[in-house]
């Protein structure tokens, strides 16, 4: 019995020590992870970084599908951000930078594609659908309202009068 108690005590001490080690490890690694995440982007002029981010918001990460370069941590996005940073450093305008990207990666790299012959359906499509749907609704409503005031034939009038009359007769 005493032996068993001793074993239990030893076991729990070991577990406690393991837990403590784990906590310490977490405590040691967490700041390390945070620091690494911070170093991934060069620390520089915050105004430049803000411009990089604003431009990166409008560029698609071509390798990660449905993410902007600003949101993505992929190597493609990291390279693109580095390129934007270099171009800003060289004194290029926002338009120069966007043109540079489109020349290499095409309009698809832009999250706001320009309105032109190949993209008018993309921009106009939803409005076109809305107009079609509204026209359809208008036609439907007009049809319904004309049906509602449809004239009764003479025989229908007589039938209606009879039904109403009989009911009045039964309930004095």
């Amino acid at each position, binding site marked *: 019995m005493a032996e068993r108690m001793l074993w239990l005590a030893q076991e729990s001490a070991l577990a406690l020590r393991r837990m403590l080690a784990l906590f310490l490890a977490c405590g040691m690694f967490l700041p390390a992870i945070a620091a690494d995440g911070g170093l991934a982007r060069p620390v520089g002029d915050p105004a430049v970084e803000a411009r990089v981010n604003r431009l990166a918001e409008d560029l698609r990460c071509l*390798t990660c599908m449905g993410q902007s370069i600003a949101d993505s941590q992929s190597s493609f996005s990291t390279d693109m951000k580095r390129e934007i940073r270099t171009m800003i450093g060289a004194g290029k305008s926002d338009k120069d930078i966007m043109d540079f990207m489109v020349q290499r990666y*095409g*309009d698809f790299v832009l999250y706001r594609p320009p309105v032109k012959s190949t993209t008018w359906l993309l921009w106009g499509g939803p409005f076109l659908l809305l107009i079609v749907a509204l026209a359809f609704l208008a036609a439907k409503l007009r049809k319904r309202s004309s049906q509602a005031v449809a004239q009764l034939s003479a025989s229908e009038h007589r039938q209606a009068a009879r039904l109403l009359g009989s009911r009045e007769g039964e309930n004095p």
Partner: protein
Amino acid sequence: MRRFLLPLAIFLVLVGFLAVGLQLNPREVPSPLIGKPVPAFRLAQLHAADKLIAPEDLRGKVWLLNVWASWCVSCKQEHPVLVDLARQNRVTLVGLNYKDERGAAINWLRQHGGDPYLVSAYDADGRVGIDFGVYGVPETFLIDKQGVIRYKHIGPITDEALKTRILPLAEELARG
């Protein structure tokens, strides 16, 4: 009966759009570089760091520029096809070793059936890759005698792609 015709028609149109959409590969972004001159570069060669390679060196030749790297998984898949193509000697094959480490790249070639390239340009930081609009390795460009990009293949090259598209176009360009 007629009241079901319109929803059915709309449904069929939708199915048509989805069917076409499913056939498209979202990773294949059409390159704006087709029909444009090949971007200028002057890079060190992979196997000889003191020698340079530039597109001007290939003037008068129809050549394929294959972007590859030792870290690229699908490059393993296309490598035997390229080695086979090099043996047939039908088109000049040039490599662009992209964001790689020189030793690792040379080793990789040794381990995967040899070096099919006439020469590989060593683009360590990927700057030249950006000028080519590279976003996923492997990618391959077909360039004509005047140095104009005529075709881009995204993803690993297959025998089928070579036979049906790349080689017929390359041979047509070589004649013209």
